[in-house]
Protein backbone atom coordinates (compact mmCIF):
# COMPACT_ATOMS: atom_id res chain seq x y z
CA UNK A 1 0.00 0.00 0.00
CA UNK A 2 1.08 3.52 -0.56
CA UNK A 3 0.75 4.76 2.99
CA UNK A 4 -2.33 6.79 2.36
CA UNK A 5 -3.68 6.37 5.88
CA UNK A 6 -4.24 9.06 8.44
CA UNK A 7 -2.29 7.39 11.27
CA UNK A 8 1.19 8.78 11.77
CA UNK A 9 3.68 6.08 12.59
CA UNK A 10 6.27 7.60 14.90
CA UNK A 11 9.71 6.16 15.34
CA UNK A 12 8.74 5.23 18.89
CA UNK A 13 6.24 2.77 17.43
CA UNK A 14 8.95 1.07 15.44
CA UNK A 15 11.04 0.77 18.57
CA UNK A 16 8.30 -1.45 19.97
CA UNK A 17 9.36 -3.95 17.34
CA UNK A 18 12.72 -4.14 19.08
CA UNK A 19 11.02 -4.73 22.42
CA UNK A 20 8.93 -7.54 20.91
CA UNK A 21 12.08 -9.01 19.40
CA UNK A 22 13.80 -8.94 22.79
CA UNK A 23 10.81 -10.65 24.41
CA UNK A 24 10.68 -13.38 21.77
CA UNK A 25 14.43 -13.95 21.95
CA UNK A 26 14.21 -14.18 25.74
CA UNK A 27 11.45 -16.80 25.54
CA UNK A 28 13.38 -18.71 22.86
CA UNK A 29 16.63 -18.77 24.83
CA UNK A 30 14.82 -19.80 28.03
CA UNK A 31 13.01 -22.58 26.18
CA UNK A 32 16.26 -23.74 24.62
CA UNK A 33 18.03 -23.85 27.98
CA UNK A 34 15.09 -25.66 29.59
CA UNK A 35 14.39 -28.17 26.83
CA UNK A 36 17.51 -28.34 24.68
CA UNK A 37 20.14 -28.18 27.43
CA UNK A 38 18.77 -29.19 30.85
CA UNK A 39 16.07 -31.72 29.89
CA UNK A 40 18.01 -32.99 26.86
CA UNK A 41 21.13 -33.33 29.05
CA UNK A 42 19.25 -35.53 31.50
CA UNK A 43 17.80 -37.57 28.64
CA UNK A 44 21.27 -37.93 27.15
CA UNK A 45 22.54 -39.46 30.39
CA UNK A 46 19.65 -41.93 30.32
CA UNK A 47 20.44 -42.74 26.71
CA UNK A 48 24.12 -43.37 27.57
CA UNK A 49 23.06 -45.70 30.40
CA UNK A 50 20.71 -47.60 28.11
CA UNK A 51 23.38 -47.81 25.43
CA UNK A 52 25.88 -49.17 27.96
CA UNK A 53 23.31 -51.66 29.23
CA UNK A 54 22.53 -52.78 25.67
CA UNK A 55 26.26 -53.29 24.92
CA UNK A 56 26.61 -55.48 28.01
CA UNK A 57 23.56 -57.60 27.20
CA UNK A 58 24.71 -57.94 23.58
CA UNK A 59 28.14 -59.13 24.72
CA UNK A 60 26.49 -61.76 26.94
CA UNK A 61 24.37 -62.91 24.00
CA UNK A 62 27.44 -63.14 21.76
CA UNK A 63 29.34 -64.99 24.50
CA UNK A 64 26.57 -67.58 24.66
CA UNK A 65 26.75 -68.00 20.89
CA UNK A 66 30.54 -68.39 21.06
CA UNK A 67 30.14 -70.96 23.85
CA UNK A 68 27.74 -72.86 21.58
CA UNK A 69 24.83 -72.68 24.03
CA UNK A 70 22.61 -70.88 21.52
CA UNK A 71 22.68 -69.97 17.83
CA UNK A 72 22.45 -66.49 16.33
CA UNK A 73 19.31 -67.51 14.42
CA UNK A 74 17.50 -68.71 17.55
CA UNK A 75 15.07 -65.99 18.61
CA UNK A 76 13.35 -67.94 21.36
CA UNK A 77 16.10 -67.96 23.98
CA UNK A 78 16.14 -65.53 26.90
CA UNK A 79 19.47 -63.96 25.89
CA UNK A 80 18.11 -62.91 22.51
CA UNK A 81 14.91 -61.58 24.09
CA UNK A 82 16.89 -59.62 26.68
CA UNK A 83 19.11 -58.18 23.93
CA UNK A 84 16.09 -57.10 21.87
CA UNK A 85 14.43 -55.54 24.90
CA UNK A 86 17.62 -53.65 25.80
CA UNK A 87 17.92 -52.51 22.19
CA UNK A 88 14.31 -51.30 22.25
CA UNK A 89 14.97 -49.32 25.44
CA UNK A 90 18.12 -47.86 23.92
CA UNK A 91 16.20 -46.67 20.83
CA UNK A 92 13.43 -45.24 23.02
CA UNK A 93 15.99 -43.34 25.11
CA UNK A 94 17.67 -42.02 21.97
CA UNK A 95 14.39 -40.78 20.50
CA UNK A 96 13.41 -39.25 23.82
CA UNK A 97 16.71 -37.35 23.89
CA UNK A 98 16.16 -36.22 20.29
CA UNK A 99 12.67 -34.94 21.15
CA UNK A 100 13.95 -32.51 23.77
CA UNK A 101 17.14 -31.56 21.96
CA UNK A 102 15.47 -30.88 18.61
CA UNK A 103 12.51 -29.12 20.22
CA UNK A 104 14.88 -26.81 22.12
CA UNK A 105 17.00 -26.11 19.05
CA UNK A 106 13.93 -25.57 16.84
CA UNK A 107 12.42 -23.07 19.29
CA UNK A 108 15.78 -21.24 19.49
CA UNK A 109 16.12 -21.21 15.69
CA UNK A 110 12.58 -19.97 15.13
CA UNK A 111 12.97 -17.39 17.92
CA UNK A 112 16.19 -16.01 16.40
CA UNK A 113 14.59 -15.69 12.95
CA UNK A 114 11.49 -14.02 14.45
CA UNK A 115 13.65 -11.60 16.44
CA UNK A 116 15.91 -10.80 13.48
CA UNK A 117 12.82 -10.18 11.33
CA UNK A 118 11.41 -7.72 13.87
CA UNK A 119 14.74 -6.04 14.62
CA UNK A 120 15.69 -5.46 10.99
CA UNK A 121 12.32 -4.01 10.04
CA UNK A 122 12.12 -1.98 13.26
CA UNK A 123 15.62 -0.52 12.92
CA UNK A 124 15.34 0.16 9.18
CA UNK A 125 12.07 2.01 9.65
CA UNK A 126 12.87 3.84 12.86
CA UNK A 127 16.07 5.19 11.29
CA UNK A 128 13.93 7.22 8.85
CA UNK A 129 12.45 10.63 9.57
CA UNK A 130 8.87 10.68 10.91
CA UNK A 131 6.33 11.19 8.13
CA UNK A 132 3.26 13.39 8.37
CA UNK A 133 0.31 12.59 6.20
CA UNK A 134 -2.34 14.92 4.90
CA UNK A 135 -5.78 13.87 6.16
CA UNK A 136 -7.53 14.67 2.88
CA UNK A 137 -4.82 12.95 0.96
CA UNK A 138 -5.43 9.77 2.91
CA UNK A 139 -9.17 9.69 2.32
CA UNK A 140 -9.04 9.92 -1.45
CA UNK A 141 -10.67 6.72 -2.70
CA UNK A 142 -9.24 7.24 -6.17
CA UNK A 143 -5.67 7.91 -5.14
CA UNK A 144 -3.12 5.56 -6.61
CA UNK A 145 -1.63 3.34 -3.92
CA UNK A 146 0.74 1.24 -5.95
CA UNK A 147 3.81 -0.02 -4.16
CA UNK A 148 7.24 -1.07 -5.41
CA UNK A 149 7.75 -3.39 -2.42
CA UNK A 150 6.31 -6.56 -4.01
CA UNK A 151 8.56 -6.08 -7.06
CA UNK A 152 11.61 -5.52 -4.84
CA UNK A 153 10.68 -8.56 -2.76
CA UNK A 154 10.16 -10.74 -5.85
CA UNK A 155 13.45 -9.61 -7.38
CA UNK A 156 15.21 -10.54 -4.13
CA UNK A 157 13.60 -14.00 -4.22
CA UNK A 158 14.74 -14.40 -7.83
CA UNK A 159 18.36 -13.58 -6.90
CA UNK A 160 18.22 -15.86 -3.86
CA UNK A 161 16.95 -18.81 -5.89
CA UNK A 162 19.39 -18.15 -8.75
CA UNK A 163 22.28 -18.48 -6.34
CA UNK A 164 20.70 -21.18 -4.19
CA UNK A 165 22.56 -24.25 -5.58
CA UNK A 166 25.95 -22.61 -4.89
CA UNK A 167 24.61 -21.25 -1.60
CA UNK A 168 23.51 -24.70 -0.43
CA UNK A 169 26.81 -26.31 -1.51
CA UNK A 170 28.87 -23.61 0.17
CA UNK A 171 26.81 -23.72 3.36
CA UNK A 172 27.09 -27.50 3.52
CA UNK A 173 30.85 -27.29 2.92
CA UNK A 174 31.33 -24.65 5.61
CA UNK A 175 29.24 -26.59 8.11
CA UNK A 176 31.14 -29.78 7.44
CA UNK A 177 34.48 -27.97 7.58
CA UNK A 178 35.44 -28.99 4.05
CA UNK A 179 37.19 -26.69 1.59
CA UNK A 180 34.43 -27.21 -0.98
CA UNK A 181 32.46 -24.05 -0.33
CA UNK A 182 33.56 -20.45 0.11
CA UNK A 183 31.75 -17.35 1.28
CA UNK A 184 32.02 -16.01 -2.30
CA UNK A 185 29.78 -18.84 -3.54
CA UNK A 186 27.02 -17.53 -1.29
CA UNK A 187 27.19 -13.97 -2.61
CA UNK A 188 24.27 -14.06 -5.10
CA UNK A 189 21.91 -15.57 -2.56
CA UNK A 190 23.09 -13.21 0.18
CA UNK A 191 22.46 -10.21 -2.09
CA UNK A 192 19.03 -11.71 -2.81
CA UNK A 193 18.28 -12.03 0.92
CA UNK A 194 19.37 -8.42 1.46
CA UNK A 195 17.03 -7.23 -1.31
CA UNK A 196 14.21 -9.36 0.20
CA UNK A 197 14.85 -7.72 3.58
CA UNK A 198 14.72 -4.22 2.07
CA UNK A 199 11.49 -5.12 0.27
CA UNK A 200 9.87 -6.48 3.43
CA UNK A 201 10.95 -3.54 5.59
CA UNK A 202 9.63 -1.10 2.99
CA UNK A 203 6.39 -3.06 2.83
CA UNK A 204 6.00 -2.70 6.60
CA UNK A 205 6.61 1.05 6.40
CA UNK A 206 3.99 1.45 3.69
CA UNK A 207 1.33 -0.80 5.18
CA UNK A 208 1.54 0.05 8.88
CA UNK A 209 -0.22 3.43 8.64
CA UNK A 210 -2.80 2.11 6.18
CA UNK A 211 -6.23 2.55 7.71
CA UNK A 212 -8.41 1.15 4.97
CA UNK A 213 -9.01 4.27 2.93
CA UNK A 214 -7.86 4.14 -0.65
CA UNK A 215 -8.18 0.38 -1.19
CA UNK A 216 -7.87 -0.02 -4.94
CA UNK A 217 -10.82 -1.46 -6.85
CA UNK A 218 -10.59 -3.36 -10.11
CA UNK A 219 -12.24 -1.44 -12.94
CA UNK A 220 -12.55 -4.13 -15.58
CA UNK A 221 -13.87 -7.69 -15.86
CA UNK A 222 -13.75 -10.27 -14.48
CA UNK A 223 -12.98 -8.59 -11.14
CA UNK A 224 -14.74 -5.26 -11.75
CA UNK A 225 -15.69 -3.68 -8.44
CA UNK A 226 -13.62 -6.11 -6.37
CA UNK A 227 -10.60 -5.21 -4.25
CA UNK A 228 -7.48 -5.69 -6.36
CA UNK A 229 -5.53 -7.10 -3.42
CA UNK A 230 -8.17 -9.76 -2.79
CA UNK A 231 -8.22 -10.78 -6.45
CA UNK A 232 -4.42 -10.85 -6.35
CA UNK A 233 -4.24 -13.12 -3.29
CA UNK A 234 -6.71 -15.55 -4.89
CA UNK A 235 -4.71 -15.73 -8.11
CA UNK A 236 -1.56 -16.24 -6.02
CA UNK A 237 -3.24 -19.05 -4.07
CA UNK A 238 -4.23 -20.81 -7.27
CA UNK A 239 -0.61 -20.74 -8.42
CA UNK A 240 0.20 -22.34 -5.07
CA UNK A 241 -2.40 -25.04 -5.77
CA UNK A 242 -0.38 -25.93 -8.86
CA UNK A 243 2.84 -26.15 -6.82
CA UNK A 244 1.32 -28.64 -4.39
CA UNK A 245 -0.42 -30.50 -7.24
CA UNK A 246 3.05 -31.06 -8.69
CA UNK A 247 4.25 -32.70 -5.49
CA UNK A 248 1.11 -34.75 -5.15
CA UNK A 249 1.03 -36.01 -8.74
CA UNK A 250 4.75 -36.90 -8.50
CA UNK A 251 4.01 -38.80 -5.31
CA UNK A 252 1.09 -40.63 -6.92
CA UNK A 253 3.22 -41.59 -9.89
CA UNK A 254 5.96 -43.00 -7.68
CA UNK A 255 3.55 -44.56 -5.24
CA UNK A 256 1.77 -46.56 -7.96
CA UNK A 257 5.18 -47.97 -8.89
CA UNK A 258 6.38 -48.86 -5.42
CA UNK A 259 5.90 -52.30 -3.98
CA UNK A 260 4.59 -51.14 -0.61
CA UNK A 261 3.30 -53.43 2.12
CA UNK A 262 -0.25 -52.74 0.92
CA UNK A 263 0.68 -53.86 -2.61
CA UNK A 264 2.81 -56.77 -1.35
CA UNK A 265 -0.03 -58.15 0.79
CA UNK A 266 -2.41 -57.73 -2.13
CA UNK A 267 0.00 -59.52 -4.47
CA UNK A 268 0.17 -56.72 -7.01
CA UNK A 269 3.89 -56.02 -6.84
CA UNK A 270 5.46 -55.97 -10.29
CA UNK A 271 8.74 -57.80 -10.70
CA UNK A 272 11.62 -56.20 -12.60
CA UNK A 273 15.20 -57.16 -13.40
CA UNK A 274 16.83 -54.57 -11.15
CA UNK A 275 20.41 -55.72 -11.66
CA UNK A 276 20.05 -56.75 -15.28
CA UNK A 277 21.24 -60.26 -14.45
CA UNK A 278 18.02 -62.10 -15.24
CA UNK A 279 16.88 -62.17 -11.60
CA UNK A 280 13.41 -60.70 -11.34
CA UNK A 281 12.51 -59.09 -8.04
CA UNK A 282 10.04 -56.58 -6.74
CA UNK A 283 11.39 -53.06 -6.47
CA UNK A 284 12.42 -52.55 -2.86
CA UNK A 285 15.33 -50.47 -1.78
CA UNK A 286 15.50 -50.65 1.96
CA UNK A 287 17.75 -52.74 4.13
CA UNK A 288 15.08 -53.14 6.81
CA UNK A 289 12.62 -54.79 4.48
CA UNK A 290 14.01 -56.25 1.25
CA UNK A 291 10.54 -57.41 0.26
CA UNK A 292 8.86 -54.05 -0.05
CA UNK A 293 9.37 -50.27 -0.10
CA UNK A 294 8.95 -48.44 3.19
CA UNK A 295 7.10 -45.14 3.23
CA UNK A 296 6.92 -42.56 6.01
CA UNK A 297 3.54 -43.92 7.07
CA UNK A 298 5.14 -47.35 7.59
CA UNK A 299 7.20 -45.76 10.37
CA UNK A 300 4.47 -43.56 11.79
CA UNK A 301 1.19 -45.41 11.41
CA UNK A 302 0.04 -48.12 13.83
CA UNK A 303 0.26 -51.37 11.89
CA UNK A 304 2.87 -49.89 9.54
CA UNK A 305 5.41 -52.21 7.90
CA UNK A 306 8.31 -51.20 10.17
CA UNK A 307 6.33 -52.22 13.23
CA UNK A 308 7.38 -49.28 15.40
CA UNK A 309 4.32 -47.18 14.66
CA UNK A 310 1.96 -46.55 17.55
CA UNK A 311 -0.03 -43.80 19.23
CA UNK A 312 3.11 -41.84 20.11
CA UNK A 313 4.62 -41.90 16.62
CA UNK A 314 1.33 -40.67 15.16
CA UNK A 315 0.96 -38.00 17.82
CA UNK A 316 3.07 -35.15 16.29
CA UNK A 317 1.32 -35.40 12.90
CA UNK A 318 -2.11 -35.70 14.52
CA UNK A 319 -1.48 -32.80 16.92
CA UNK A 320 -0.24 -30.70 13.99
CA UNK A 321 -3.43 -31.44 12.06
CA UNK A 322 -5.56 -30.25 14.95
CA UNK A 323 -3.23 -27.28 15.53
CA UNK A 324 -3.70 -26.05 11.96
CA UNK A 325 -7.49 -26.37 12.14
CA UNK A 326 -7.61 -24.55 15.48
CA UNK A 327 -5.31 -21.85 14.10
CA UNK A 328 -7.63 -21.45 11.10
CA UNK A 329 -10.46 -20.87 13.56
CA UNK A 330 -8.50 -18.40 15.72
CA UNK A 331 -7.58 -16.26 12.72
CA UNK A 332 -11.23 -16.26 11.67
CA UNK A 333 -12.10 -15.06 15.19
CA UNK A 334 -9.45 -12.32 14.90
CA UNK A 335 -11.02 -11.19 11.61
CA UNK A 336 -14.56 -11.38 12.99
CA UNK A 337 -13.66 -9.21 15.99
CA UNK A 338 -11.63 -6.76 13.88
CA UNK A 339 -14.65 -6.26 11.59
CA UNK A 340 -17.19 -6.00 14.40
CA UNK A 341 -18.70 -2.62 15.23
CA UNK A 342 -19.80 -3.51 18.74
CA UNK A 343 -17.22 -5.65 20.53
CA UNK A 344 -18.64 -7.23 23.66
CA UNK A 345 -16.10 -8.16 26.31
CA UNK A 346 -16.49 -11.87 27.10
CA UNK A 347 -17.12 -13.00 30.64
CA UNK A 348 -14.70 -14.91 32.85
CA UNK A 349 -11.08 -15.61 31.95
CA UNK A 350 -11.60 -14.61 28.32
CA UNK A 351 -12.76 -11.19 29.50
CA UNK A 352 -9.50 -10.68 31.37
CA UNK A 353 -7.46 -11.85 28.38
CA UNK A 354 -9.42 -9.74 25.89
CA UNK A 355 -10.59 -6.59 27.67
CA UNK A 356 -10.65 -4.51 24.48
CA UNK A 357 -11.23 -5.14 20.80
CA UNK A 358 -7.60 -4.28 20.04
CA UNK A 359 -6.33 -6.77 22.65
CA UNK A 360 -8.74 -9.46 21.44
CA UNK A 361 -7.55 -9.24 17.82
CA UNK A 362 -3.90 -9.20 18.90
CA UNK A 363 -4.30 -12.14 21.28
CA UNK A 364 -6.12 -14.31 18.75
CA UNK A 365 -3.29 -13.59 16.32
CA UNK A 366 -0.74 -14.51 19.01
CA UNK A 367 -2.55 -17.82 19.61
CA UNK A 368 -2.42 -18.46 15.85
CA UNK A 369 1.31 -17.71 15.86
CA UNK A 370 1.92 -20.06 18.79
CA UNK A 371 -0.01 -22.89 17.11
CA UNK A 372 1.92 -22.38 13.87
CA UNK A 373 5.22 -22.34 15.74
CA UNK A 374 4.25 -25.55 17.50
CA UNK A 375 3.55 -27.06 14.10
CA UNK A 376 7.10 -26.28 12.93
CA UNK A 377 8.71 -27.53 16.15
CA UNK A 378 6.75 -30.80 16.14
CA UNK A 379 7.49 -31.35 12.47
CA UNK A 380 11.23 -31.00 13.09
CA UNK A 381 11.03 -33.35 16.07
CA UNK A 382 9.20 -35.88 13.91
CA UNK A 383 11.77 -35.54 11.12
CA UNK A 384 14.60 -36.10 13.60
CA UNK A 385 12.94 -39.34 14.73
CA UNK A 386 12.45 -40.53 11.16
CA UNK A 387 16.08 -39.75 10.27
CA UNK A 388 17.32 -41.53 13.41
CA UNK A 389 15.34 -44.61 12.37
CA UNK A 390 16.92 -44.63 8.91
CA UNK A 391 14.26 -42.89 6.83
CA UNK A 392 16.84 -40.84 4.91
CA UNK A 393 17.62 -40.02 1.26
CA UNK A 394 20.41 -42.57 1.23
CA UNK A 395 18.53 -45.15 3.30
CA UNK A 396 15.05 -45.00 1.80
CA UNK A 397 15.63 -43.29 -1.57
CA UNK A 398 12.78 -41.58 -3.35
CA UNK A 399 10.19 -42.47 -0.67
CA UNK A 400 12.10 -40.23 1.73
CA UNK A 401 12.83 -37.67 -0.97
CA UNK A 402 9.20 -36.98 -1.91
CA UNK A 403 8.12 -37.06 1.76
CA UNK A 404 10.69 -34.48 2.89
CA UNK A 405 10.23 -32.29 -0.20
CA UNK A 406 6.41 -32.20 0.03
CA UNK A 407 6.13 -31.83 3.81
CA UNK A 408 9.16 -29.51 3.82
CA UNK A 409 7.61 -27.24 1.17
CA UNK A 410 4.45 -27.13 3.27
CA UNK A 411 6.54 -26.34 6.36
CA UNK A 412 8.23 -23.47 4.50
CA UNK A 413 4.78 -22.07 3.69
CA UNK A 414 3.78 -22.31 7.35
CA UNK A 415 7.01 -20.60 8.37
CA UNK A 416 6.54 -17.79 5.81
CA UNK A 417 3.03 -17.36 7.19
CA UNK A 418 4.42 -17.06 10.71
CA UNK A 419 6.74 -14.22 9.64
CA UNK A 420 3.79 -12.36 8.10
CA UNK A 421 1.81 -13.09 11.27
CA UNK A 422 4.52 -11.38 13.33
CA UNK A 423 3.85 -8.22 11.35
CA UNK A 424 0.09 -8.67 11.80
CA UNK A 425 0.60 -8.92 15.57
CA UNK A 426 2.87 -5.87 15.52
CA UNK A 427 0.22 -3.84 13.71
CA UNK A 428 -2.50 -5.19 16.01
CA UNK A 429 -0.43 -4.06 19.01
CA UNK A 430 0.37 -0.60 17.69
CA UNK A 431 -1.93 0.83 15.02
CA UNK A 432 -4.71 -1.81 15.49
CA UNK A 433 -6.90 -3.70 13.06
CA UNK A 434 -10.46 -2.42 12.88
CA UNK A 435 -13.57 -2.52 10.70
CA UNK A 436 -11.90 -0.19 8.18
CA UNK A 437 -8.57 -1.93 7.63
CA UNK A 438 -9.44 -5.53 8.61
CA UNK A 439 -9.06 -6.67 5.00
CA UNK A 440 -5.35 -7.17 5.83
CA UNK A 441 -6.33 -9.88 8.31
CA UNK A 442 -8.81 -11.32 5.81
CA UNK A 443 -6.25 -11.61 3.00
CA UNK A 444 -3.62 -13.12 5.23
CA UNK A 445 -6.32 -15.45 6.59
CA UNK A 446 -6.96 -16.70 3.05
CA UNK A 447 -3.29 -17.68 2.78
CA UNK A 448 -3.35 -19.34 6.19
CA UNK A 449 -6.49 -21.33 5.34
CA UNK A 450 -4.84 -22.45 2.12
CA UNK A 451 -1.88 -23.77 4.13
CA UNK A 452 -4.41 -25.68 6.26
CA UNK A 453 -6.11 -26.96 3.10
CA UNK A 454 -2.79 -28.22 1.69
CA UNK A 455 -2.24 -30.15 4.93
CA UNK A 456 -5.70 -31.72 4.52
CA UNK A 457 -4.27 -33.46 1.44
CA UNK A 458 -0.68 -34.04 2.63
CA UNK A 459 -1.52 -35.54 6.01
CA UNK A 460 -3.60 -38.52 4.84
CA UNK A 461 -1.45 -39.12 1.75
CA UNK A 462 1.89 -39.19 3.52
CA UNK A 463 1.06 -40.06 7.12
CA UNK A 464 -1.99 -42.29 7.07
CA UNK A 465 -1.90 -44.15 3.75
Amino acid at each position, binding site marked *: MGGGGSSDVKNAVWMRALMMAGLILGIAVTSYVGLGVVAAGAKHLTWEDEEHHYDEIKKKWQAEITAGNITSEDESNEFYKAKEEAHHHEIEAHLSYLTYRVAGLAILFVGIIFSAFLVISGVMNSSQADEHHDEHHGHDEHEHHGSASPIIFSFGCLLFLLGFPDFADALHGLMMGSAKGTIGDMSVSMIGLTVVTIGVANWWREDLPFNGYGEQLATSDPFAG*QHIRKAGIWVFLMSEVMVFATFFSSYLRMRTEWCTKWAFDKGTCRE*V*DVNGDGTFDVIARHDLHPDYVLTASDYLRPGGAVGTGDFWTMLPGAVNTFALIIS*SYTIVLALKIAKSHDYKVPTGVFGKLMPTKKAAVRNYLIVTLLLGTMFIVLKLVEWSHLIAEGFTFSGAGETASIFYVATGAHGVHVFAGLLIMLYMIFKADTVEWNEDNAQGVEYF*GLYWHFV*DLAWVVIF*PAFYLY
Partner: protein
Amino acid sequence: MGEHKLIMGKDIYFWNFIVLMIFTLFEVGAVFFEEWPGTDTPVSLTAVWAILIVVGIVKGFGIGAFFMHLWDDPRIYLRVALFPTLFVLLMLWGIGLSNPEGVTGLPSWCTPNWDSLVTER
Protein backbone atom coordinates in the same frame (compact mmCIF):
# COMPACT_ATOMS: atom_id res chain seq x y z
CA MET B 1 -19.68 -13.01 6.16
CA GLY B 2 -20.81 -16.08 8.01
CA GLU B 3 -20.92 -14.55 11.49
CA HIS B 4 -24.38 -13.11 10.82
CA LYS B 5 -26.02 -16.54 10.46
CA LEU B 6 -26.60 -18.05 13.87
CA ILE B 7 -27.38 -21.71 14.52
CA MET B 8 -28.26 -22.49 18.14
CA GLY B 9 -26.73 -19.17 19.12
CA LYS B 10 -23.39 -19.83 17.46
CA ASP B 11 -22.13 -18.56 14.12
CA ILE B 12 -21.26 -20.68 11.11
CA TYR B 13 -17.52 -20.41 11.84
CA PHE B 14 -17.99 -22.16 15.17
CA TRP B 15 -20.02 -25.02 13.68
CA ASN B 16 -17.62 -25.36 10.78
CA PHE B 17 -14.77 -25.61 13.27
CA ILE B 18 -16.63 -28.32 15.23
CA VAL B 19 -17.33 -30.33 12.05
CA LEU B 20 -13.67 -30.05 10.99
CA MET B 21 -12.49 -31.24 14.40
CA ILE B 22 -14.88 -34.20 14.41
CA PHE B 23 -13.88 -35.30 10.90
CA THR B 24 -10.19 -34.95 11.74
CA LEU B 25 -10.73 -37.03 14.85
CA PHE B 26 -12.47 -39.64 12.70
CA GLU B 27 -9.64 -39.53 10.13
CA VAL B 28 -6.86 -39.96 12.67
CA GLY B 29 -8.83 -42.46 14.76
CA ALA B 30 -9.61 -44.66 11.76
CA VAL B 31 -5.91 -45.36 11.31
CA PHE B 32 -5.81 -47.24 14.60
CA PHE B 33 -8.25 -49.86 13.31
CA GLU B 34 -6.82 -52.65 11.20
CA GLU B 35 -10.18 -54.41 11.31
CA TRP B 36 -13.69 -52.98 11.18
CA PRO B 37 -14.79 -52.43 14.80
CA GLY B 38 -16.70 -55.42 16.16
CA THR B 39 -15.76 -57.72 13.28
CA ASP B 40 -12.80 -59.77 12.07
CA THR B 41 -12.96 -58.22 8.61
CA PRO B 42 -9.75 -56.38 7.75
CA VAL B 43 -10.03 -52.79 6.53
CA SER B 44 -9.19 -52.94 2.84
CA LEU B 45 -7.03 -50.49 0.95
CA THR B 46 -10.06 -49.37 -1.04
CA ALA B 47 -11.94 -48.62 2.17
CA VAL B 48 -9.00 -46.62 3.52
CA TRP B 49 -8.88 -44.62 0.28
CA ALA B 50 -12.63 -44.04 0.36
CA ILE B 51 -12.57 -42.85 3.97
CA LEU B 52 -9.62 -40.53 3.43
CA ILE B 53 -11.05 -39.04 0.23
CA VAL B 54 -14.53 -38.46 1.72
CA VAL B 55 -13.06 -36.88 4.86
CA GLY B 56 -10.72 -34.77 2.71
CA ILE B 57 -13.60 -33.51 0.56
CA VAL B 58 -15.71 -32.60 3.60
CA LYS B 59 -12.79 -30.81 5.26
CA GLY B 60 -11.78 -29.07 2.04
CA PHE B 61 -15.36 -27.89 1.53
CA GLY B 62 -15.62 -26.61 5.10
CA ILE B 63 -12.38 -24.65 4.91
CA GLY B 64 -13.00 -23.29 1.41
CA ALA B 65 -16.70 -22.49 1.71
CA PHE B 66 -16.82 -20.99 5.19
CA PHE B 67 -13.36 -20.08 6.47
CA MET B 68 -12.32 -18.71 3.05
CA HIS B 69 -15.80 -17.21 2.53
CA LEU B 70 -16.35 -18.72 -0.91
CA TRP B 71 -19.96 -19.50 0.08
CA ASP B 72 -20.85 -15.82 0.54
CA ASP B 73 -18.30 -14.00 -1.60
CA PRO B 74 -19.02 -12.98 -5.22
CA ARG B 75 -18.98 -15.98 -7.56
CA ILE B 76 -15.87 -14.73 -9.36
CA TYR B 77 -13.72 -15.95 -6.44
CA LEU B 78 -15.28 -19.41 -6.62
CA ARG B 79 -14.52 -19.49 -10.35
CA VAL B 80 -10.94 -18.47 -9.65
CA ALA B 81 -10.68 -21.21 -7.03
CA LEU B 82 -12.07 -23.80 -9.44
CA PHE B 83 -9.99 -22.65 -12.39
CA PRO B 84 -6.91 -24.76 -11.62
CA THR B 85 -9.07 -27.84 -10.93
CA LEU B 86 -8.85 -28.86 -14.57
CA PHE B 87 -5.06 -28.63 -14.53
CA VAL B 88 -4.83 -30.45 -11.22
CA LEU B 89 -7.01 -33.27 -12.54
CA LEU B 90 -4.92 -33.43 -15.70
CA MET B 91 -1.76 -33.69 -13.60
CA LEU B 92 -3.18 -36.35 -11.32
CA TRP B 93 -4.45 -38.37 -14.27
CA GLY B 94 -1.69 -37.66 -16.78
CA ILE B 95 1.24 -37.86 -14.42
CA GLY B 96 0.02 -39.49 -11.25
CA LEU B 97 -2.14 -42.34 -12.43
CA SER B 98 -1.79 -42.95 -16.17
CA ASN B 99 1.69 -44.39 -16.01
CA PRO B 100 2.14 -46.91 -13.21
CA GLU B 101 5.61 -47.63 -14.55
CA GLY B 102 6.50 -43.96 -14.19
CA VAL B 103 9.76 -44.38 -12.34
CA THR B 104 11.11 -47.22 -14.45
CA GLY B 105 9.25 -46.64 -17.68
CA LEU B 106 10.38 -43.12 -18.53
CA PRO B 107 12.57 -42.59 -21.61
CA SER B 108 16.32 -42.63 -21.10
CA TRP B 109 16.75 -38.91 -21.76
CA CYS B 110 14.38 -38.28 -18.88
CA THR B 111 15.97 -40.63 -16.36
CA PRO B 112 19.72 -40.78 -17.00
CA ASN B 113 21.34 -44.11 -16.08
CA TRP B 114 18.08 -45.52 -14.81
CA ASP B 115 16.95 -47.37 -17.91
CA SER B 116 20.24 -49.23 -18.06
CA LEU B 117 19.57 -50.63 -14.59
CA VAL B 118 15.97 -51.69 -14.95
CA THR B 119 14.52 -54.02 -17.56
CA GLU B 120 10.88 -54.94 -17.42
CA ARG B 121 9.91 -58.54 -17.83
